[in-house]
């Protein structure tokens, strides 16, 4: 009995450490990447290649005073940043990094991750609303409408995949794609000829779900000061930041598991955790790359993209796959 508790504690500690380390160093990667794309070096003063920048940032944030604005809902104001980080860490519990590295392999892993991902929108809503700031509220409204409209095509795409593989267990999902690149879900097969498009839809929705540019309407500086975290300073702001990057890691892991064969090697050789990490970091790089390439869309453009393009196409794909699965 005590051994299972110990196992659980170790799993949680590793999940938190992985999430926090990634969150901290993805900020560094983001700033370096942004620098390179804009032909400047980025943070390069603290330590070699600026690698000591994240600890320095964290130290700075932790030593600052946490100001609660007058008239704010104190309890919710304090809970919101925690709610941004906690679901991301929870999701790590069921993500399989390799055949043997998974904290808890659940039969409803996909469902659980999406349930927790929806909580992320709650943290944005609570943060904006509880800080009693008009910009915060406007940003929350935007972020919630965005999250609702992008969860639909995302889930329809996931349903398509679940129909094809017949399982919601993330580990079995990867196992069903093992054996090389031709078995991955992204490659079109007879029963699912539109999978590359599904991949694009899912990728776009992950960007929108994590509130990343070009879909970062909730943080539109030019019109909303800083968006939902306008009133947050100190580590409250830090937690929002870390939550965003932890969510990016979750998004990249999900794309890898659902479409890119998880820890499977493209040629079927040496499957292992290194392939999984390689894939998620390539995806994260593409997130950063996209963020520093495209300007922010308008809220109408954003909602039109979801309701007029992504949802119809993903629905069509769902019906087509359902029909073809029956035939073949």
């Amino acid at each position, binding site marked *: 009995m005590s051994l299972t508790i110990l196992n659980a504690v170790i799993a949680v500690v590793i999940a938190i450490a992985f999430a926090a380390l990634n969150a901290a160093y993805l900020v560094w990667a983001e700033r370096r990447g942004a620098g390179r794309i804009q032909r400047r070096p980025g943070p390069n003063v603290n330590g070699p290649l600026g690698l000591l920048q994240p600890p320095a940032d964290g130290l700075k944030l932790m030593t600052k005073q946490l100001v609660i604005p007058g008239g704010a809902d104190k309890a919710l104001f304090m809970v919101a940043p925690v709610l941004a980080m906690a679901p991301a860490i929870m999701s790590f519990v069921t993500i399989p990094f390799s055949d043997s590295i998974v904290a808890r392999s659940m039969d409803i892993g996909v469902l659980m991750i999406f349930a927790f991902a929806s909580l992320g929108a709650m943290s944005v809503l609570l943060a904006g609303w509880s800080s009693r700031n008009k910009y915060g509220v406007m940003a929350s409204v935007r972020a919630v409408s965005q999250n609702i409209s992008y969860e639909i095509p995302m889930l329809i795409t996931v349903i398509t995949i679940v129909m094809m593989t017949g399982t919601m267990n993330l580990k079995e999902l990867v196992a069903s794609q093992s054996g090389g690149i031709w078995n991955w879900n992204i490659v079109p097969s007879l029963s699912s000829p539109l999978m590359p498009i599904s991949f694009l839809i899912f990728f776009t929705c992950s960007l929108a779900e994590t509130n990343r540019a070009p879909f970062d309407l909730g943080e539109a500086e030019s019109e909303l000061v800083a968006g939902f975290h306008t009133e947050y300073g100190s580590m409250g702001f830090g937690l929002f930041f870390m939550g965003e990057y932890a969510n990016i890691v979750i998004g990249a892991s999900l794309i890898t598991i659902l479409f890119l064969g998880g820890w499977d090697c493209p040629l079927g050789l040496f499957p292992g955790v290194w392939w999984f990490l390689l894939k998620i970091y390539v995806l994260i790089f593409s997130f950063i*790359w996209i963020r520093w390439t*495209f300007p922010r869309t308008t809220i109408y453009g954003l909602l039109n993209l979801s309701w007029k393009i992504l949802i119809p196409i993903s629905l069509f794909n769902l019906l087509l796959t359902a029909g073809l699965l029956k035939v073949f």
Partner: protein
Amino acid sequence: MGAYFSEIFRGLQSLATGLGITFKEFFKPVVTVPYPYETIKMSDRFRGHIELVENEEGKPKCVACGMCQRACPSGCISLASKSVEYEVEVKGEMKTKKKKVLTKYNLNFTTCSLCGQCVESCNFGAITFSKEYNLASSRKEDFHFDLLNRLKERNS
């Protein structure tokens, strides 16, 4: 229906073009200068505060005529001089002559507007713009330059 799909396709194409451009930029060398560690050489036409020009002996070229002082619209130049007698050989015989020697040349940079009237008014080319631009201080006194001293320090 056709317009709907062609719009999506064209949109995707333009997104891919944008990504291609930033990807190429990613691998190009950086163009910024890491300022405190490296600095750019200022161009010839850069106007810093003024500086005295020296002659071959390392003394200031200035003859203390005071034209710059008069030309300055902000009155930020103040100079002083003294008369010195010296002997010079003219047509085989020694003669005693007088000339002015600069004893003080102060520039109050806090009121200077860098208009350059002083440099233009100088008939002897004795003052010029320096290329100094690292001029930040929290004390006013740091901007009262003693140009004679600066010249001495440059030569030492």
